[in-house]
């Protein structure tokens, strides 16, 4: 990103992506902004699937590729960083036609960190969602195989949470050959 893409607010000419989504979703989008040429929408999880599908399928937008998905934990800094809840799942979608990325942020409360899985729209979401589940404990409803991906299956705690306490003892690695069979039958 070079200097000309700095934080110029695009008040003069409203961003076409922003306009298109507002037309369709109006008040259902909790918040929207354009920073660094990236439109951002904060959306309730109940509207996530519909908004994601709209962004993907709308002929003017066609955000057909899921670029990235990750979790974030805003423990005790929700106010400072303008977040609505402790957790967030952040999606980055890419449109080949517009050559742009759009960001979706879904706030999630600590005691109910469940969000619909986007694996039905993009199979690419599969591993990314497993990663967010593994490291933050965010659950993705409807995910075909919501298991740990980077950490060992029997690890305790969610390492990327801000209040995570790493174990004081070295982890005892376990290996159970019986699990191979279950693993391969769960599919990937």
């Amino acid at each position, binding site marked *: 990103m070079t200097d000309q893409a700095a934080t110029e607010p695009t008040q003069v000419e409203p961003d076409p992506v922003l306009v298109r989504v507002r037309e369709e979703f109006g008040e259902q989008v909790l918040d929207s902004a354009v920073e660094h040429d990236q439109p951002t929408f904060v959306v309730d999880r109940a509207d996530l699937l519909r908004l994601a599908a709209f962004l993907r399928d709308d002929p003017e937008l066609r955000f057909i590729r899921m670029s990235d998905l*990750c979790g*974030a934990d805003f423990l005790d800094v929700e106010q400072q960083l303008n977040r609505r809840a402790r957790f967030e799942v*952040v999606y980055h979608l890419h449109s*080949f036609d517009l050559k742009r990325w759009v960001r979706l942020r879904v706030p999630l409360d600590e005691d109910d960190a469940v969000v619909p899985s986007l694996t039905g729209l993009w199979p*690419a979401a599969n*591993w990314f969602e497993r990663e967010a589940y593994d490291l933050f404990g965010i659950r993705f409803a409807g995910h075909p195989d919501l298991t740990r991906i*980077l*950490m060992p299956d029997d690890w305790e705690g969610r390492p990327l949470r801000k209040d995570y306490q790493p174990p004081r003892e070295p982890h005892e690695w376990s290996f159970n050959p019986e699990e*191979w069979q279950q*693993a391969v039958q769960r599919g990937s």
Partner: protein
Amino acid sequence: MAVRLTEEQNLVLNMGPQHPSTHGVLRLVLELDGEIVVNCKPVIGYLHTGFEKTYETKTYYQGVTLTDRMDYLAPLSNNLGYALAIEALLDVEIPPRATVARVLLAELTRLASHLVSVGSHAMDLGAMSVFLYCFRERERILDVFEMCSGQRMMTSYIRPGGLAQDLPPGFEEAVRAILEVMPARIDEYEALLTKNDIWRDRTVGIGTLLLDDAIRLGVTGPSLRASGGDFDLRRDRPYCGYEEYDFQVIVGSRGDVYERYLMRIREMRESVKIVRQALDRLPGGSHITSDRKVAFPPRSELATSMEALIHHFKLATEGFRVPAGEVYTSIESPRGELGVYLIADGSSKPYRLHVRAPSFANMQALPVLARGGLVADLVAIIGSLDPIFGEVDR
């Protein structure tokens, strides 16, 4: 060891994580019907080092050294992706010399990385000599990295604000010498592989990835372009002034193992072109921004300027502060879209830094490609996706 069978009497076989053809520490649980792969489940995480957690405890400057260790075959690409994300929030001016040098180094990195990819892929399929030839040239590129940074692989040379130090004397001659031989050397690899009947037998029509699947699975880089996806971040969202360079985005159509190999060979030729253009236009001037809040003052100033000393002290003890905000930047690493999503809270450490590793996303295509093929072809398919596990597992 007991033989394990599924209900359909298929053999369950574990491959890896220490299998030499799995490019590091990939473990695959395979379900086999004879030699046919019925199902394939990658198991990853063996190199998980918690980089994203560690970033949160390091200042932005300290974090640079972690980036080298993710995609260890393309450390300068990682340095660059990380630096660009921070600079987008900092809003600092990068001197033209640093910008051009970054392009130059990123393309040398692509060359070095593709050389390993082609070489080790060929070795996986039994063509040992290609590996040795590829590494011969790669060593010369690593020599250049060593000249610049003192390190062959863990360079940490591209820093937020510019470069760690100026390009060394003799840099231009060393790079020109590589450019001189490279096109002929690429011809050599092609002479060994491109029309080689054995190579073609092992790769043509194997592991075909359809464009739709590639996009749905989030595949990027040469593997997407081999399937006909005309997408390259250097052209489609230019950074570091890539729009001013003359190069082709190489796109294939068939999407098989052979085409993915061919993409890398042809991209190497394009990289040579870009390096030459960058070298021709390399301007003089400073290698790092003059913003003393971000860049260390030159050593010569420390003895005479109190202010420089203060800046140096602040940077060394506390680091620079990045204004609160979030940004997602991505660059075209040798393996695809290397994205960095940074949430800054105004302190001198990232609040959250997530790396969208291209190998991680590309690996999701492996089960799709493996199903229905032979076990022996699986080795060819893994090599053609060119995964780096430091980056997959982070």
